[in-house]
């Protein structure tokens, strides 16, 4: 550490390392148990207001990804407003973890708010750890969150926030491949996506390093939960080759959805629930976990500096009512981290329990993996990843 550039008390590398400390990955059996259901605390939201009434703001500003909230009336936000009087301003302004971080880091680094009370960040990126270690997020008020007990055990201790002091899972989902049957037959492997000449120039992957390289690592027969320089480089090389050949035309955030639905992309890396929601209007779209395996991830709700902790905590408590979480999970086709959701989901839609995208069965879970936090936090990897994107 004689290099002058590392003289300052806390470098980003250290921060990243700190974020990755104890960076164990949630085990799949645990997740499996998580999805099974189990009994939940009930009575719930009333409890939050039963004691000393917290002073709530009139509005809650919430940043989230697209295709990530229930829309059937009465929506859960309407129900929340009815119960608490708090109106939710819901902004679908997260397109990728990198972009969102770029947008908010300026004010947060000066200790200023970002006009939001809740935002989300994916555990499959370096960012939740960065937000926590930089102290850019505020501690939850668990006194207002009796439903905290409904959090599934598998999600109770992620590496970036071992005691869940700052974060609560929003939903989980899977990385896979989507294709448009008008333009191609089934695309079931990354090799096919990257090399099939029929897909040339009609393929996209994500800007998210964890998601994209996770699937490529699996296709290479490497373990995404234990990444070496060698396995990283060979995965990177495969993406680079596909970019240079013109097979891959874009790196996308959540914005792959519209061109995929329109038929501009024949096949692309896509998130499980997104496509399930698109299929309703576009029956030509399909989605699957690649043959050599997929990646599972979780988005986490966080309270940024300047956000109102009581209001945000009250909302999180509300979202951990199995009834509410079931409605959100069923309509978005993503995976809830709330105990007892399955029983409630069946009441909404008897078929929901059989939908592996909402309640992944053993079969699917056996194909899913999680990314190595050390890879996500590796500064050199991040730089190399950016270079592949032409940047």
């Amino acid at each position: 550490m004689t290099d002058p550039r590392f003289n300052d008390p806390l470098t980003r590398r250290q921060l990243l390392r700190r974020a990755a400390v104890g960076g164990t990955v949630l085990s799949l059996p645990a997740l499996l148990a998580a999805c099974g259901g189990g009994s939940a605390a009930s009575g719930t939201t009333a409890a939050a207001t039963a004691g000393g009434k917290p002073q709530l703001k009139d509005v809650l500003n919430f940043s989230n990804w697209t295709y990530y909230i229930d829309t059937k009336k009465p929506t859960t936000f309407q129900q929340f407003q009815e119960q608490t009087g708090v109106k939710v301003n819901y902004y679908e302004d997260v397109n990728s973890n990198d972009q969102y971080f770029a947008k908010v880091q300026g004010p947060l680094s000066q200790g200023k708010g970002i006009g939001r009370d809740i935002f989300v960040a994916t555990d499959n990126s370096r960012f939740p750890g960065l937000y926590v270690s930089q102290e850019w997020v505020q501690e939850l008020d668990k006194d207002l969150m009796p439903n905290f007990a409904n959090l599934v055990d598998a999600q109770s201790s992620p590496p970036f926030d071992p005691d869940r002091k700052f974060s609560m899972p929003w939903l989980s989902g899977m990385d896979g491949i989507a294709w448009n049957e008008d333009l191609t037959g089934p695309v079931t492997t990354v090799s096919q996506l990257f090399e099939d000449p029929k897909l040339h120039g009609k393929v996209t992957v994500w800007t998210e390093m964890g998601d994209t390289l996770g699937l490529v690592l699996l296709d290479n027969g490497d373990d995404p939960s234990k990444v070496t320089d060698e396995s990283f480089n060979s995965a990177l090389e495969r993406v680079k080759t596909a970019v240079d050949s013109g097979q891959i035309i874009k790196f996308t955030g959540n914005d792959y959805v519209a061109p995929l639905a329109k038929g501009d992309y024949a096949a692309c890396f896509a998130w499980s629930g997104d496509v399930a929601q698109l299929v309703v209007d576009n029956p030509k779209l399909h989605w699957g976990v690649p043959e050599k395996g997929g990646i599972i991830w979780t988005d986490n709700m966080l309270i940024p500096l300047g956000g109102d902790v009581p209001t945000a905590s009250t909302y999180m408590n509300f979202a951990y009512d199995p009834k509410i979480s079931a409605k959100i999970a069923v309509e978005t086709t993503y995976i809830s981290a709330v105990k007892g959701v399955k029983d409630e989901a069946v009441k909404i839609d008897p078929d929901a329990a059989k939908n592996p995208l909402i309640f992944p069965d053993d079969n699917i879970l056996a194909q899913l993996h999680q990314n190595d936090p050390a890879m996500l936090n590796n500064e050199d990897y991040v730089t190399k990843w950016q270079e592949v994107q032409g940047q």
Partner: protein
Amino acid sequence: MGAFFHRHRGLTPYLLLAPGILWLGIFFLIPLAFLGYESLQSGLFPNFEFTWEFSNFSDALSLYHEQLVRSFFYAGIATVACLLLAYPLAYWIAFRAGPWRNLFLLVIVAPFFVTYLVRTLAWLNILANEGPVVGFLQWAHVLGENDRLLATTFAVVAGITYNFFPFMALPLYVSLEQIDPRLLEAAKDLYASSTKAFLRVTLPLSAPGIVAGTLLTFIPAAGDFINAALLGTPKQAMIGNVIQAKFLESLDYPTAAALSFILMGMILVALLVYARVVGTEKLTG
């Protein structure tokens, strides 16, 4: 007040200059100084330190010369395309449009009523694989079954050409419109052919418009990133895309700042060469 100005008549030019100079000072020079300071820093976000890190410049050049060259190349083609498309149009409006002049000028400016981003997004639909242009060109066998326009160099250059077209057309119009038609009549009286009259009279007199239009198109086009981001692929990435990503995504401020200076320097050099070739009096009209 009036008496004050009368007594200090010498001050008037400075007072007139003051608002502009102040504006540039606050919103251009000070940020530029910060940018320069940033470009010589080292370290990793958020702990940068000023260390006279000149290697930021050489590193940035060696890593991103490809995108730099590409930016100048694309901006160059787009500028020439703009000139070739805009000159006949401006000529026609200036000399032939008669009472319709203002209407046509309005049509040229009309795209500015829509934001830049939305205009470029519209091209996504126009050039889309399932869109009308590709469909027509495939029907006419100009494009093959599997060819496309979107996500190609053509799309990016076409987007830049479209977006900067008014910056070329308007100065051209202004310089052409000022030409005294009697000069052309005189040329014809002296037995000049139409071609010769154009080449010897119209073209030289419109040179200030050409120069102004070229600069107004080329300079912003070289730093553009929207067109490459929306209509291109990573293979069409321009230097603006790199700077944008370095500033906002990888949070590598020093490299981004160094690249900004390199771009600025290269444009300045190009400008000096251009001024040398065409002569400075044309730059100022």
